[in-house]
Protein backbone atom coordinates (compact mmCIF):
# COMPACT_ATOMS: atom_id res chain seq x y z
CA UNK A 1 0.00 0.00 0.00
CA UNK A 2 2.96 2.32 0.74
CA UNK A 3 4.28 1.86 -2.79
CA UNK A 4 0.87 2.63 -4.23
CA UNK A 5 0.55 5.75 -2.08
CA UNK A 6 3.96 7.05 -3.21
CA UNK A 7 3.21 6.22 -6.86
CA UNK A 8 -0.11 8.04 -6.73
CA UNK A 9 1.44 11.12 -5.16
CA UNK A 10 4.24 11.36 -7.71
CA UNK A 11 1.92 10.93 -10.65
CA UNK A 12 1.47 14.71 -10.50
CA UNK A 13 4.89 15.78 -9.22
CA UNK A 14 4.36 19.53 -9.67
CA UNK A 15 1.05 19.54 -7.80
CA UNK A 16 2.52 17.41 -5.01
CA UNK A 17 5.64 19.61 -4.78
CA UNK A 18 3.59 22.82 -4.61
CA UNK A 19 1.29 21.42 -1.93
CA UNK A 20 4.20 20.05 0.12
CA UNK A 21 6.15 23.31 -0.37
CA UNK A 22 3.30 25.49 0.90
CA UNK A 23 2.74 23.30 3.92
CA UNK A 24 6.50 23.08 4.57
CA UNK A 25 6.83 26.86 4.59
CA UNK A 26 4.00 27.18 7.11
CA UNK A 27 5.51 24.44 9.27
CA UNK A 28 8.99 26.01 9.13
CA UNK A 29 7.53 29.31 10.31
CA UNK A 30 5.61 27.62 13.09
CA UNK A 31 8.69 25.63 14.11
CA UNK A 32 10.90 28.76 14.15
CA UNK A 33 8.43 30.75 16.25
CA UNK A 34 7.91 27.90 18.69
CA UNK A 35 11.69 27.35 18.97
CA UNK A 36 12.26 31.08 19.54
CA UNK A 37 9.68 31.13 22.34
CA UNK A 38 11.42 28.19 23.97
CA UNK A 39 14.89 29.75 23.52
CA UNK A 40 13.81 33.13 24.85
CA UNK A 41 12.31 31.63 27.97
CA UNK A 42 15.30 29.43 28.82
CA UNK A 43 17.85 32.10 27.81
CA UNK A 44 16.18 34.76 29.94
CA UNK A 45 15.98 32.44 32.92
CA UNK A 46 19.67 31.48 32.56
CA UNK A 47 20.80 35.10 32.27
CA UNK A 48 18.80 36.25 35.27
CA UNK A 49 19.92 33.25 37.37
CA UNK A 50 23.48 34.00 36.33
CA UNK A 51 23.27 37.48 37.80
CA UNK A 52 22.65 36.39 41.38
CA UNK A 53 20.54 39.51 41.93
CA UNK A 54 17.13 39.50 43.55
CA UNK A 55 16.35 43.21 43.54
CA UNK A 56 17.34 46.24 41.57
CA UNK A 57 17.08 49.81 42.84
CA UNK A 58 16.52 52.08 39.85
CA UNK A 59 15.54 55.74 39.37
CA UNK A 60 11.84 56.62 39.17
CA UNK A 61 10.24 55.93 35.78
CA UNK A 62 9.21 52.67 34.14
CA UNK A 63 10.83 50.15 36.50
CA UNK A 64 10.88 47.30 33.98
CA UNK A 65 12.44 49.41 31.26
CA UNK A 66 15.04 50.69 33.72
CA UNK A 67 15.89 47.24 35.08
CA UNK A 68 16.02 45.76 31.58
CA UNK A 69 18.36 48.49 30.39
CA UNK A 70 20.64 48.02 33.39
CA UNK A 71 20.73 44.25 32.99
CA UNK A 72 21.54 44.58 29.31
CA UNK A 73 24.25 47.16 29.99
CA UNK A 74 22.43 50.18 28.62
CA UNK A 75 22.40 53.63 30.11
CA UNK A 76 19.42 55.38 31.67
CA UNK A 77 18.35 58.97 31.17
CA UNK A 78 17.92 59.44 34.91
CA UNK A 79 20.13 58.53 37.84
CA UNK A 80 20.12 57.87 41.59
CA UNK A 81 21.98 59.89 44.18
CA UNK A 82 24.94 58.03 45.69
CA UNK A 83 23.27 58.42 49.11
CA UNK A 84 20.73 55.79 47.99
CA UNK A 85 23.54 53.21 48.14
CA UNK A 86 24.23 53.98 51.79
CA UNK A 87 20.55 53.59 52.63
CA UNK A 88 20.41 50.25 50.83
CA UNK A 89 23.52 49.02 52.63
CA UNK A 90 22.02 49.97 56.00
CA UNK A 91 19.03 47.69 55.40
CA UNK A 92 19.42 44.58 57.59
CA UNK A 93 18.12 42.24 54.90
CA UNK A 94 20.68 43.30 52.30
CA UNK A 95 23.70 41.02 51.91
CA UNK A 96 25.28 42.69 48.88
CA UNK A 97 24.52 46.07 47.31
CA UNK A 98 26.53 46.72 44.17
CA UNK A 99 26.34 50.23 42.73
CA UNK A 100 26.50 50.68 38.95
CA UNK A 101 27.00 53.72 36.78
CA UNK A 102 26.37 53.09 33.12
CA UNK A 103 27.21 55.55 30.41
CA UNK A 104 26.34 54.99 26.78
CA UNK A 105 28.27 56.86 24.12
CA UNK A 106 26.59 56.40 20.75
CA UNK A 107 28.88 56.34 17.73
CA UNK A 108 26.39 56.84 14.95
CA UNK A 109 28.90 56.80 12.12
CA UNK A 110 30.19 53.44 13.40
CA UNK A 111 26.68 52.13 14.08
CA UNK A 112 27.58 51.12 17.61
CA UNK A 113 27.57 52.41 21.14
CA UNK A 114 30.43 52.41 23.63
CA UNK A 115 29.13 51.27 26.99
CA UNK A 116 31.13 52.25 30.05
CA UNK A 117 30.23 50.66 33.37
CA UNK A 118 31.52 51.94 36.67
CA UNK A 119 31.43 49.42 39.51
CA UNK A 120 32.98 48.75 42.89
CA UNK A 121 34.23 45.49 44.36
CA UNK A 122 30.76 44.55 45.62
CA UNK A 123 29.99 43.65 42.01
CA UNK A 124 32.36 40.69 42.26
CA UNK A 125 30.07 39.06 44.82
CA UNK A 126 27.22 39.19 42.29
CA UNK A 127 29.28 37.93 39.38
CA UNK A 128 30.85 34.66 40.52
CA UNK A 129 31.60 33.82 36.89
CA UNK A 130 33.69 37.00 36.50
CA UNK A 131 37.08 35.63 35.38
CA UNK A 132 39.90 37.19 33.44
CA UNK A 133 40.94 35.48 30.27
CA UNK A 134 44.11 37.56 30.25
CA UNK A 135 45.68 39.91 32.79
CA UNK A 136 44.12 40.83 36.11
CA UNK A 137 40.54 40.11 37.13
CA UNK A 138 40.20 43.42 38.97
CA UNK A 139 41.32 47.02 38.57
CA UNK A 140 44.94 47.75 39.32
CA UNK A 141 44.47 51.46 39.97
CA UNK A 142 42.05 54.27 39.48
CA UNK A 143 42.91 54.61 35.81
CA UNK A 144 42.55 51.01 34.79
CA UNK A 145 39.92 49.37 32.68
CA UNK A 146 38.73 45.78 32.31
CA UNK A 147 37.32 44.85 28.94
CA UNK A 148 34.64 42.38 27.97
CA UNK A 149 35.87 39.77 25.48
CA UNK A 150 34.16 41.37 22.47
CA UNK A 151 35.24 44.89 23.43
CA UNK A 152 38.87 43.74 23.63
CA UNK A 153 38.66 42.21 20.15
CA UNK A 154 36.98 45.31 18.67
CA UNK A 155 39.60 47.64 20.16
CA UNK A 156 42.52 45.20 19.65
CA UNK A 157 43.50 45.60 23.31
CA UNK A 158 45.47 43.30 25.59
CA UNK A 159 46.43 43.72 29.24
CA UNK A 160 49.01 46.49 29.54
CA UNK A 161 47.72 48.37 26.47
CA UNK A 162 46.23 51.82 26.74
CA UNK A 163 42.64 52.71 25.88
CA UNK A 164 41.47 56.23 25.31
CA UNK A 165 37.97 57.58 25.82
CA UNK A 166 37.76 60.64 23.53
CA UNK A 167 34.50 61.89 25.08
CA UNK A 168 36.01 62.01 28.56
CA UNK A 169 39.50 62.81 27.28
CA UNK A 170 40.85 60.09 29.56
CA UNK A 171 43.42 57.42 28.82
CA UNK A 172 43.24 54.21 30.84
CA UNK A 173 45.44 51.16 31.19
CA UNK A 174 43.91 47.78 30.30
CA UNK A 175 44.20 45.65 33.46
CA UNK A 176 42.50 42.56 32.10
CA UNK A 177 40.20 41.01 29.55
CA UNK A 178 37.27 38.94 30.76
CA UNK A 179 36.40 35.44 29.65
CA UNK A 180 33.60 35.32 27.12
CA UNK A 181 30.32 34.99 29.02
CA UNK A 182 27.81 35.07 26.17
CA UNK A 183 26.04 37.97 27.90
CA UNK A 184 25.96 41.73 27.32
CA UNK A 185 29.05 42.02 29.55
CA UNK A 186 31.18 40.85 26.61
CA UNK A 187 30.95 44.22 24.91
CA UNK A 188 31.37 46.50 27.94
CA UNK A 189 34.23 48.64 29.25
CA UNK A 190 34.41 48.29 33.05
CA UNK A 191 36.09 50.99 35.14
CA UNK A 192 36.17 51.74 38.87
CA UNK A 193 33.00 53.49 39.97
CA UNK A 194 34.75 56.68 41.05
CA UNK A 195 36.70 56.85 37.80
CA UNK A 196 33.48 56.52 35.80
CA UNK A 197 31.84 59.24 37.89
CA UNK A 198 34.80 61.56 37.26
CA UNK A 199 35.16 60.70 33.58
CA UNK A 200 31.55 61.42 32.76
CA UNK A 201 30.97 64.20 35.31
CA UNK A 202 28.44 62.17 37.26
CA UNK A 203 29.87 62.73 40.74
CA UNK A 204 27.74 61.05 43.39
CA UNK A 205 25.31 59.66 40.81
CA UNK A 206 24.45 56.02 40.15
CA UNK A 207 22.44 54.31 37.45
CA UNK A 208 21.27 51.47 39.69
CA UNK A 209 22.05 49.37 42.73
CA UNK A 210 21.95 45.59 42.28
CA UNK A 211 20.92 43.89 45.50
CA UNK A 212 21.20 40.39 46.92
CA UNK A 213 19.47 39.56 50.18
CA UNK A 214 20.70 37.39 53.04
CA UNK A 215 17.50 35.38 52.74
CA UNK A 216 15.23 35.44 49.67
CA UNK A 217 12.27 34.96 52.03
CA UNK A 218 12.80 38.57 53.15
CA UNK A 219 12.11 39.86 49.65
CA UNK A 220 8.70 41.37 50.42
CA UNK A 221 9.69 43.21 53.60
CA UNK A 222 12.98 44.44 52.10
CA UNK A 223 11.19 45.71 48.99
CA UNK A 224 8.72 47.68 51.10
CA UNK A 225 11.54 49.31 53.09
CA UNK A 226 13.69 50.09 50.04
CA UNK A 227 10.73 51.62 48.19
CA UNK A 228 10.87 54.47 50.69
CA UNK A 229 14.23 55.74 49.41
CA UNK A 230 13.49 59.11 47.75
CA UNK A 231 13.73 59.20 43.96
CA UNK A 232 14.15 55.44 43.71
CA UNK A 233 12.02 52.41 43.08
CA UNK A 234 12.62 48.72 43.53
CA UNK A 235 12.13 46.02 40.93
CA UNK A 236 12.33 42.38 41.82
CA UNK A 237 13.92 40.19 39.20
CA UNK A 238 11.10 37.69 39.57
CA UNK A 239 8.57 40.41 38.75
CA UNK A 240 10.61 41.54 35.83
CA UNK A 241 11.00 38.06 34.43
CA UNK A 242 7.28 37.48 34.93
CA UNK A 243 6.48 40.68 33.05
CA UNK A 244 8.71 39.79 30.14
CA UNK A 245 7.41 36.24 29.98
CA UNK A 246 3.83 37.55 30.05
CA UNK A 247 4.69 39.92 27.24
CA UNK A 248 6.35 37.10 25.38
CA UNK A 249 3.32 34.88 26.09
CA UNK A 250 0.96 37.43 24.53
CA UNK A 251 3.20 37.91 21.50
CA UNK A 252 3.73 34.17 21.22
CA UNK A 253 0.00 33.44 21.27
CA UNK A 254 -0.57 35.97 18.50
CA UNK A 255 2.33 34.72 16.44
CA UNK A 256 1.47 31.05 16.96
CA UNK A 257 -2.09 31.85 15.90
CA UNK A 258 -0.70 33.28 12.65
CA UNK A 259 1.49 30.18 12.27
CA UNK A 260 -1.47 27.89 12.92
CA UNK A 261 -3.59 29.73 10.36
CA UNK A 262 -0.79 29.15 7.86
CA UNK A 263 -0.76 25.45 8.75
CA UNK A 264 -4.55 25.27 8.41
CA UNK A 265 -4.18 26.95 5.00
CA UNK A 266 -1.62 24.28 4.14
CA UNK A 267 -4.01 21.54 5.30
CA UNK A 268 -6.71 22.97 3.03
CA UNK A 269 -4.35 22.71 0.06
CA UNK A 270 -3.70 19.08 1.05
CA UNK A 271 -7.48 18.55 1.14
CA UNK A 272 -7.81 20.17 -2.28
CA UNK A 273 -4.99 18.09 -3.73
CA UNK A 274 -6.40 14.82 -2.37
CA UNK A 275 -9.92 15.59 -3.52
CA UNK A 276 -8.67 16.41 -7.01
CA UNK A 277 -6.64 13.19 -7.02
CA UNK A 278 -9.65 11.14 -5.95
CA UNK A 279 -11.82 12.67 -8.67
CA UNK A 280 -9.13 12.08 -11.28
CA UNK A 281 -8.67 8.49 -10.20
CA UNK A 282 -12.35 7.58 -9.89
CA UNK A 283 -12.13 4.76 -12.54
CA UNK A 284 -9.02 3.33 -10.94
CA UNK A 285 -10.43 3.43 -7.41
CA UNK A 286 -13.70 1.92 -8.61
CA UNK A 287 -11.70 -0.82 -10.32
CA UNK A 288 -9.92 -1.50 -7.02
CA UNK A 289 -13.29 -1.85 -5.36
CA UNK A 290 -14.49 -4.17 -8.19
CA UNK A 291 -11.38 -6.32 -7.71
CA UNK A 292 -12.19 -6.83 -4.05
CA UNK A 293 -10.63 -3.92 -2.16
CA UNK A 294 -12.79 -3.14 0.84
CA UNK A 295 -14.04 0.45 1.48
CA UNK A 296 -11.77 0.65 4.53
CA UNK A 297 -8.75 -0.32 2.42
CA UNK A 298 -9.51 2.42 -0.12
CA UNK A 299 -10.04 4.87 2.76
CA UNK A 300 -6.71 3.84 4.26
CA UNK A 301 -4.94 4.28 0.91
CA UNK A 302 -6.08 7.90 0.53
CA UNK A 303 -5.35 8.65 4.20
CA UNK A 304 -1.89 7.13 3.76
CA UNK A 305 -1.25 9.36 0.74
CA UNK A 306 -2.13 12.34 2.90
CA UNK A 307 0.19 11.18 5.68
CA UNK A 308 3.03 10.65 3.21
CA UNK A 309 2.44 14.11 1.76
CA UNK A 310 2.38 15.84 5.16
CA UNK A 311 5.34 13.73 6.31
CA UNK A 312 7.36 14.93 3.32
CA UNK A 313 6.21 18.50 3.97
CA UNK A 314 7.30 18.16 7.60
CA UNK A 315 10.77 16.98 6.57
CA UNK A 316 11.01 19.84 4.09
CA UNK A 317 9.75 22.26 6.76
CA UNK A 318 12.46 21.05 9.13
CA UNK A 319 15.04 21.61 6.40
CA UNK A 320 13.69 25.11 5.76
CA UNK A 321 13.82 25.81 9.50
CA UNK A 322 17.48 24.75 9.52
CA UNK A 323 18.28 26.98 6.56
CA UNK A 324 16.14 30.02 7.32
CA UNK A 325 15.41 29.88 11.07
CA UNK A 326 18.20 32.40 11.73
CA UNK A 327 16.39 34.89 9.53
CA UNK A 328 13.19 34.62 11.57
CA UNK A 329 15.31 34.85 14.74
CA UNK A 330 16.95 38.03 13.49
CA UNK A 331 13.58 39.63 12.77
CA UNK A 332 12.05 38.58 16.09
CA UNK A 333 15.15 39.51 18.14
CA UNK A 334 14.78 43.17 17.18
CA UNK A 335 11.34 43.27 18.77
CA UNK A 336 12.14 41.35 21.95
CA UNK A 337 13.02 43.11 25.19
CA UNK A 338 16.06 41.78 27.07
CA UNK A 339 16.86 39.25 24.35
CA UNK A 340 19.49 36.81 25.62
CA UNK A 341 22.87 36.90 23.88
CA UNK A 342 22.82 33.21 22.91
CA UNK A 343 20.83 31.83 20.02
CA UNK A 344 17.09 32.08 20.57
CA UNK A 345 16.40 29.03 18.45
CA UNK A 346 16.08 26.13 20.86
CA UNK A 347 14.41 23.16 19.22
CA UNK A 348 13.71 20.38 21.69
CA UNK A 349 12.63 16.86 20.63
CA UNK A 350 9.30 17.50 22.37
CA UNK A 351 8.71 20.65 20.31
CA UNK A 352 9.69 18.87 17.14
CA UNK A 353 7.35 15.99 18.03
CA UNK A 354 4.47 18.41 18.68
CA UNK A 355 4.94 20.14 15.32
CA UNK A 356 5.18 16.78 13.54
CA UNK A 357 2.06 15.51 15.32
CA UNK A 358 0.22 18.72 14.40
CA UNK A 359 1.19 18.39 10.74
CA UNK A 360 0.27 14.72 10.54
CA UNK A 361 -2.98 15.34 12.45
CA UNK A 362 -3.91 18.14 10.05
CA UNK A 363 -3.02 15.91 7.12
CA UNK A 364 -5.16 13.10 8.46
CA UNK A 365 -8.06 15.46 9.07
CA UNK A 366 -7.71 16.90 5.56
CA UNK A 367 -7.89 13.38 4.10
CA UNK A 368 -11.13 12.33 5.81
CA UNK A 369 -13.58 13.64 3.22
CA UNK A 370 -11.60 12.65 0.08
CA UNK A 371 -10.92 9.21 1.60
CA UNK A 372 -14.56 8.77 2.57
CA UNK A 373 -15.63 9.78 -0.93
CA UNK A 374 -13.17 7.33 -2.48
CA UNK A 375 -14.27 4.51 -0.20
CA UNK A 376 -17.94 5.08 -1.15
CA UNK A 377 -17.34 4.42 -4.84
CA UNK A 378 -19.50 1.53 -6.01
CA UNK A 379 -17.69 -1.30 -7.87
CA UNK A 380 -20.32 -0.96 -10.60
CA UNK A 381 -18.89 2.46 -11.50
CA UNK A 382 -15.85 0.65 -12.85
CA UNK A 383 -17.93 -1.29 -15.36
CA UNK A 384 -19.57 1.93 -16.57
CA UNK A 385 -16.29 3.75 -17.02
CA UNK A 386 -14.23 0.99 -18.58
Amino acid at each position, binding site marked *: MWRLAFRNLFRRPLRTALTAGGLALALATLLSLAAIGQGYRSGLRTELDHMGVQLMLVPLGCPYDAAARVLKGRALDTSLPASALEEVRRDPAVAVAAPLLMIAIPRL*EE*RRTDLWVGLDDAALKLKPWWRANAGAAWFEGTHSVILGAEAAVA*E*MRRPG*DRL*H*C*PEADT*TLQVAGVLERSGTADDSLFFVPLRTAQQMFQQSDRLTAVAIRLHDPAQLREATLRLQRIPGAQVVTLTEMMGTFLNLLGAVRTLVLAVGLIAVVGGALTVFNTLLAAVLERTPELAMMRALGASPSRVFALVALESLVLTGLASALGWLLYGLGGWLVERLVRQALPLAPGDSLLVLTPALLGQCLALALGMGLLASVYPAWRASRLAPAVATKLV
Partner: protein
Amino acid sequence: MCPWREPADDLRAWFPEATDHRAETRILSGQRLALASRLGRMPDAEEHALQIHRVYQGSTALGVVLTRRVKGECGAIEIVLAATPEGRVRGLRLQRIREPQAVREELQRAEWLGAFAGTELAGDWTLASGVPPVNPGAQVSAAAVADGVRSLLVLYATARETPPSLVRHHS
Protein backbone atom coordinates in the same frame (compact mmCIF):
# COMPACT_ATOMS: atom_id res chain seq x y z
CA MET B 1 36.62 41.83 8.91
CA CYS B 2 36.70 45.59 9.03
CA PRO B 3 33.56 47.09 7.43
CA TRP B 4 33.58 49.95 4.94
CA ARG B 5 31.45 52.48 6.79
CA GLU B 6 30.95 55.38 4.38
CA PRO B 7 31.10 54.01 0.82
CA ALA B 8 29.11 56.85 -0.75
CA ASP B 9 31.31 59.62 0.70
CA ASP B 10 34.53 57.77 -0.03
CA LEU B 11 33.54 57.04 -3.62
CA ARG B 12 32.62 60.69 -4.14
CA ALA B 13 36.04 61.71 -2.84
CA TRP B 14 38.22 59.17 -4.64
CA PHE B 15 36.22 57.89 -7.60
CA PRO B 16 33.66 60.60 -8.45
CA GLU B 17 33.04 59.02 -11.86
CA ALA B 18 32.13 55.62 -10.31
CA THR B 19 28.78 54.12 -11.21
CA ASP B 20 29.02 50.84 -9.32
CA HIS B 21 31.07 48.98 -6.75
CA ARG B 22 31.13 45.29 -5.93
CA ALA B 23 32.72 43.46 -3.03
CA GLU B 24 34.53 40.16 -3.25
CA THR B 25 36.31 38.21 -0.56
CA ARG B 26 39.64 36.57 -1.37
CA ILE B 27 40.87 33.82 0.92
CA LEU B 28 44.65 34.06 1.16
CA SER B 29 45.42 31.50 3.84
CA GLY B 30 46.95 29.27 1.14
CA GLN B 31 49.51 32.01 0.46
CA ARG B 32 50.67 32.22 4.07
CA LEU B 33 54.36 31.75 3.31
CA ALA B 34 54.31 34.23 0.41
CA LEU B 35 52.51 36.74 2.65
CA ALA B 36 55.00 36.20 5.48
CA SER B 37 57.90 36.76 3.12
CA ARG B 38 56.41 40.00 1.77
CA LEU B 39 55.21 41.33 5.12
CA GLY B 40 58.42 40.42 6.91
CA ARG B 41 56.41 38.73 9.67
CA MET B 42 53.78 36.03 9.96
CA PRO B 43 50.36 37.27 8.82
CA ASP B 44 47.90 37.81 11.65
CA ALA B 45 44.35 36.40 11.75
CA GLU B 46 42.84 39.32 9.82
CA GLU B 47 45.43 38.97 7.06
CA HIS B 48 44.27 35.55 5.90
CA ALA B 49 41.47 37.05 3.86
CA LEU B 50 40.93 40.30 2.02
CA GLN B 51 37.69 41.98 1.08
CA ILE B 52 38.17 43.88 -2.16
CA HIS B 53 35.59 46.51 -3.10
CA ARG B 54 36.03 46.88 -6.86
CA VAL B 55 34.90 50.22 -8.24
CA TYR B 56 33.56 50.54 -11.78
CA GLN B 57 32.42 53.14 -14.27
CA GLY B 58 30.15 51.05 -16.41
CA SER B 59 32.28 48.03 -17.18
CA THR B 60 35.61 49.85 -16.73
CA ALA B 61 37.47 49.08 -13.50
CA LEU B 62 38.48 52.35 -11.85
CA GLY B 63 40.18 50.92 -8.79
CA VAL B 64 39.64 49.22 -5.49
CA VAL B 65 38.84 50.17 -1.92
CA LEU B 66 40.34 48.12 0.90
CA THR B 67 39.75 48.34 4.64
CA ARG B 68 41.74 47.20 7.64
CA ARG B 69 41.71 47.56 11.40
CA VAL B 70 45.09 48.23 12.99
CA LYS B 71 46.22 48.46 16.58
CA GLY B 72 46.69 52.12 17.48
CA GLU B 73 48.33 53.14 20.72
CA CYS B 74 45.05 53.83 22.51
CA GLY B 75 42.51 51.79 20.55
CA ALA B 76 41.72 50.30 17.17
CA ILE B 77 42.17 52.47 14.06
CA GLU B 78 40.19 51.65 10.92
CA ILE B 79 41.87 52.43 7.62
CA VAL B 80 40.10 52.89 4.29
CA LEU B 81 42.47 52.76 1.36
CA ALA B 82 41.67 53.56 -2.26
CA ALA B 83 44.02 52.21 -4.90
CA THR B 84 44.26 51.89 -8.66
CA PRO B 85 43.64 48.44 -10.15
CA GLU B 86 47.46 48.04 -10.28
CA GLY B 87 47.84 48.77 -6.56
CA ARG B 88 49.01 52.39 -6.46
CA VAL B 89 47.50 54.33 -3.54
CA ARG B 90 44.86 56.83 -4.55
CA GLY B 91 43.67 57.98 -1.14
CA LEU B 92 43.65 57.12 2.53
CA ARG B 93 41.13 57.84 5.27
CA LEU B 94 40.90 56.84 8.94
CA GLN B 95 37.24 55.95 9.35
CA ARG B 96 37.54 55.27 13.06
CA ILE B 97 40.15 56.47 15.51
CA ARG B 98 40.07 56.54 19.31
CA GLU B 99 43.43 58.23 19.99
CA PRO B 100 43.81 61.36 22.17
CA GLN B 101 42.90 64.56 20.37
CA ALA B 102 46.48 65.65 19.60
CA VAL B 103 47.25 62.30 17.97
CA ARG B 104 43.93 62.27 16.13
CA GLU B 105 44.58 65.70 14.68
CA GLU B 106 48.12 64.75 13.71
CA LEU B 107 47.09 61.56 11.92
CA GLN B 108 44.11 63.13 10.22
CA ARG B 109 46.05 66.06 8.79
CA ALA B 110 45.29 66.27 5.08
CA GLU B 111 49.03 66.59 4.30
CA TRP B 112 49.91 63.44 6.23
CA LEU B 113 47.14 61.32 4.77
CA GLY B 114 47.66 62.92 1.35
CA ALA B 115 51.35 61.93 1.36
CA PHE B 116 50.30 58.29 0.86
CA ALA B 117 48.68 59.09 -2.51
CA GLY B 118 50.78 57.77 -5.38
CA THR B 119 52.80 55.40 -3.18
CA GLU B 120 53.30 51.78 -4.16
CA LEU B 121 54.15 48.58 -2.34
CA ALA B 122 57.77 48.76 -3.51
CA GLY B 123 58.27 52.17 -1.86
CA ASP B 124 59.88 53.01 1.48
CA TRP B 125 57.41 52.50 4.34
CA THR B 126 59.60 53.67 7.19
CA LEU B 127 58.17 56.45 9.32
CA ALA B 128 59.98 59.76 8.82
CA SER B 129 61.69 58.35 5.74
CA GLY B 130 59.23 57.11 3.10
CA VAL B 131 56.26 58.03 5.29
CA PRO B 132 56.16 61.69 6.43
CA PRO B 133 57.16 62.28 10.07
CA VAL B 134 54.65 63.00 12.81
CA ASN B 135 54.86 64.47 16.33
CA PRO B 136 56.62 62.18 18.80
CA GLY B 137 53.36 61.44 20.63
CA ALA B 138 51.74 60.11 17.46
CA GLN B 139 54.57 57.90 16.26
CA VAL B 140 53.25 54.55 17.53
CA SER B 141 49.86 54.98 15.90
CA ALA B 142 51.35 56.53 12.74
CA ALA B 143 53.64 53.52 12.36
CA ALA B 144 50.61 51.23 12.83
CA VAL B 145 48.73 53.09 10.09
CA ALA B 146 51.71 52.93 7.72
CA ASP B 147 52.11 49.21 8.42
CA GLY B 148 48.38 48.72 7.87
CA VAL B 149 48.51 50.46 4.47
CA ARG B 150 51.54 48.41 3.44
CA SER B 151 49.87 45.22 4.65
CA LEU B 152 46.77 46.02 2.56
CA LEU B 153 48.94 46.56 -0.52
CA VAL B 154 50.74 43.26 0.14
CA LEU B 155 47.44 41.42 0.49
CA TYR B 156 46.06 43.06 -2.64
CA ALA B 157 49.21 42.26 -4.66
CA THR B 158 49.06 38.65 -3.45
CA ALA B 159 45.36 38.44 -4.30
CA ARG B 160 46.06 39.76 -7.81
CA GLU B 161 48.72 37.13 -8.38
CA THR B 162 46.62 34.27 -6.98
CA PRO B 163 44.09 32.49 -9.19
CA PRO B 164 40.68 33.47 -7.85
CA SER B 165 39.65 29.96 -6.87
CA LEU B 166 38.22 31.10 -3.57
CA VAL B 167 36.22 34.20 -4.37
CA ARG B 168 32.93 35.15 -2.80
CA HIS B 169 31.08 37.96 -4.51
CA HIS B 170 28.71 40.25 -2.66
CA SER B 171 26.21 42.56 -4.26
